[in-house]
């Protein structure tokens, strides 16, 4: 009996060990992604500005960010004398964790999802909003006027842009009729159990490919996706919405006082946020892990390229594409002023997003 109990305990432990392994795998993926995204960002900016970028460490500077992270790991923790020590130390952890927890419900392929929640969309939206608490904590804890101003600007921006983003997301959810991210992904490809209609009239359930993505099922979602994309740039505090970190005005905003590993965690949070928002948008609008290639006659390209590994391949390449666009925009567009930022959000994006939601409702009633 005791032995049996012991075996059950081991089995139960096994069950939890997989959770921990999945979490570790996600963390290491995010960390490696951040390392190479920083490298890519520097190379993209160099290309756009007609420079070479990092060239010294490794072939074409490819080991530059590894050298950077090694340097950061060795640095001592510098805490400003007048800072609130507890808040100062806790802020980077909260900023990173809030983003990292968002990955829990995002699907990577058919049957590959860390946790298939019934309310996945809502969960991601909610957990990401915790980041602003971490930013405020960093801004206050540093006891530095630039940090505080940066934090206030950042939160004002994130809170405002959550509204158009949320409504754009709702208009996609109204088409999908579910809040489970995995189900939303399934409904945009050949594995769907219901009919999938391209532009609302042509059933492409057997054909799949890009034709069955949400943006092509209901074309007004293209506008919704653009709104979501712009708002996600603002939520990542990236140019053209980088007034929280405006180098020429605020040194570097809420993370002015951070150095070493703590700075690395804030940076990790920022780059994971880029990946998270891009992936969330891809799942909601651009077919998630579904293949790009449609079945053409006897050439079953969509069936051949759908599977666990293909799923990971497709979603990662789609997300990399979107992250690439984010970088391209950052080094191309100038920074918006505060009043331009707010008028873009409240006077253009929010009404447009409401309009998309209205069309989604009519679409659901009349066409589907």
């Amino acid at each position: 009996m005791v032995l049996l109990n012991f075996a059950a305990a081991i089995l139960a432990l096994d069950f939890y060990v997989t959770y921990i392994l999945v979490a570790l795998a996600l963390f290491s993926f995010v960390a490696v992604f951040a390392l190479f995204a920083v490298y890519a960002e520097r190379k993209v900016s160099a290309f756009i500005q007609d420079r070479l970028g990092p060239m010294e460490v490794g072939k074409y500077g490819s080991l530059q960010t590894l050298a950077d992270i090694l340097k950061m790991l060795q640095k001592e923790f510098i805490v400003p004398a007048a800072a609130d020590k507890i808040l100062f130390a806790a802020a980077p952890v909260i900023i990173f964790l809030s983003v990292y927890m968002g990955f829990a419900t995002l699907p990577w392929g058919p049957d590959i999802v860390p946790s298939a929640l019934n309310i996945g969309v809502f969960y991601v939206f909610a957990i990401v909003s915790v980041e602003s608490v971490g930013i405020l904590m960093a801004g206050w804890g540093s006891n530095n006027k630039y940090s505080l101003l940066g934090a206030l600007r950042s939160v004002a921006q994130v809170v405002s842009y959550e509204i158009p983003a949320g409504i754009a997301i709702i208009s996609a959810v109204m088409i999908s009729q579910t809040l489970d991210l995995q189900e939303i992904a399934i409904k945009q490809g050949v594995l769907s159990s219901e009919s999938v209609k391209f532009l609302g009239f042509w059933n492409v359930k057997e054909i799949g490919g890009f034709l069955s993505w949400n943006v092509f099922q209901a074309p007004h979602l293209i506008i919704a996706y653009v709104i979501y994309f712009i708002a996600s740039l603002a939520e990542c505090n990236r140019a053209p919405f980088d007034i929280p970190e405006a180098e020429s005005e605020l040194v570097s905003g809420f993370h002015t006082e951070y150095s070493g590993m703590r700075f690395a965690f804030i940076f990790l949070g920022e780059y994971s946020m880029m990946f998270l928002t891009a992936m969330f948008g891809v799942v909601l609008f651009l077919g998630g892990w579904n293949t790009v290639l449609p079945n053409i006659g006897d050439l079953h390209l969509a069936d051949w390229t759908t599977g666990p590994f293909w799923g990971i391949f497709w979603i990662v390449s789609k997300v990399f594409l979107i992250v690439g666009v984010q970088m391209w925009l950052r080094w191309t567009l100038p920074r918006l002023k505060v009043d331009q930022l707010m008028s873009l959000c409240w006077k253009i994006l929010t009404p447009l997003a409401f309009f998309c939601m209205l069309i989604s409702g009519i679409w659901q009633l009349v066409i589907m």
Partner: protein
Amino acid sequence: MTIEQLAFYVISATALLSALLVVSLKNFVRSIFLFFLTLFSMAGLFVFALADFVAVTQLVIYVGGVLVLMIFAFLLSNRELLNNPEASEQSGFLHYLPGITVSVVFLGVLLMVLLKLDPGEFQWIQQSKENTLKPTDNTIHYLGINIMTRYLLPFEVVSVLLLMALIGAAHLARKEKEQ
């Protein structure tokens, strides 16, 4: 003790301890950030009550909205005022007496209810024995249907109230006309 129970006790203890610290800390800003921990562990407790939607809504509204607003109010106020609150001058047992009395009496009432209550005696509890939720159930469908049918009037009244608050806020934020 299963891991679920362990998690439940850890989360409850966090909620209680952080709430206690929120009211007893001298440093206002720290206590408001601790309030975040309280609200977050409350969301965790809602998950254990199989109210996942309520838990996430708690995060969106209290953490993403109310708490951020409260922190904003703190950060925009004078730092000296925060560091030297006037109330700390008149500390001592007498100062805390009303608060302690109220909380002890309230605890007594709660304990009395808990001890005297026999959950089995209520009919509605006995009737709902079979009618339980599973962790995998999709609760948002029930919520949506109930809000749109049974609770439609309160829902609409609340939405009108929120609209009024929005219009009021927009009016307050407008530039005043020069006279």
